[in-house]
């Protein structure tokens, strides 16, 4: 330990892992409430997803009865992007940490680190592209209705 260099990023990463963990509890709670209790997983269509993402309109008649919530669009979009970002960071950093705790992988520390950075960035970009696809003119490509 005393021979190891102090890390400038380890503390921040540890902190972000906890922040995103707490954030995920809230965001996943919201996700489950909307997708599984209000709309219902079987009733999710491209059409009502477009409504939620572009207008913040949450409508459903499922476990919680008939419910209509008109969220500000930017707020719903913020929850969607936050959920994406938090999941990618929390999940990828968690797996990276588990790998870094293995003495047998110590020799590959840098390649593994850069792989996770690139892979996480790719996942996030992919998620953003899917998110953007719900906005005109993108959604017309999918002919949701």
């Amino acid at each position: 330990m005393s021979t190891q260099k102090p890390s400038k990023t380890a503390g921040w990463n540890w902190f972000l892992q906890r922040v995103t963990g707490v954030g995920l509890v809230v965001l996943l709670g919201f996700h489950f409430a909307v997708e599984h209790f209000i709309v219902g997983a079987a009733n999710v269509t491209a059409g009502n997803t477009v409504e939620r993402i572009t207008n913040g309109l949450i409508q459903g008649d499922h476990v919680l009865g008939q419910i209509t919530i008109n969220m500000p669009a930017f707020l719903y979009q913020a929850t969607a992007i936050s959920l994406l970002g938090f999941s990618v960071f929390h999940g990828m950093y968690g797996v990276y940490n588990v790998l870094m705790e293995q003495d047998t992988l110590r020799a590959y520390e840098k390649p593994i680190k850069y792989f996770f950075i690139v892979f996480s960035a790719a996942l996030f970009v992919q998620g953003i592209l899917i998110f953007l696809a719900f906005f005109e003119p993108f959604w017309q490509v999918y002919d949701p209705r």
Partner: protein
Amino acid sequence: MATTQETQRSEPATAEGKAELDVFRYIPEEDDEPHTETYEIETFEGMTVLDALIKIRDEQDSSLTVRHSCRMARCGSDAVYINGTQRLACNTQVSELSQPIDVEPLPRFDVIRDLVVEMNEFYDRMESVEPWFQPDHEPETGEEYLQSPENRKNIDTVLDCIWCGACTSSCSPAATDSDFPGPAALAKAYRFYKDEREGEETRKRRLEMLESSHGIYRCHTQFNCTEVCPKGISPTEAIMEMSRDAVKEKLRFWR
């Protein structure tokens, strides 16, 4: 797993009667691989697992090897794995255990012989956190480094560590990451980190040292170490407090 095994076992031994022990045996010069030997002994009121092992060694098998010294939970030399949990053999009553009593060496330590494990790696981990007093300057008055009762109370919780290795044996990251000091060493680091007599400079340096990528942030907060500590110390809480302090220092970036 341990719970399932416990439920399949018979009732604990009575205060006086018989007890059956399944003891891990391995003598490198004689055995190709480790095996278990079963011993039946007469018990007496207040008999500890260490008493039982000594009785086996004295009366049945003089080759049985177990490390022990003070027999009163102060030296920490007889930490073993009893019925799936790290415990001190001298501090565990036979009458409280379900039978047969499994006695194995501390997991994740190299076995030297029978229940005796190699402790050098553990001592290296302890030494890595510089577990000695390093004051910034000479005492202000007289020849003593005076400590306030409040500050002493802060480190009370971790002072009782007897270096038995039970916590480090139970710690998952310590098992796979040889650069992680482990709970005992980090609790020891906490003891000096919280000591006001060392001074601000040393405190900061200690915290920076512990902030390596294989330092305090490797703790999984599983509390395994806390559960098995025979002295009731909670290394997890000490580690978390240091982690929080380190992050708070970072958040005060304008200072």
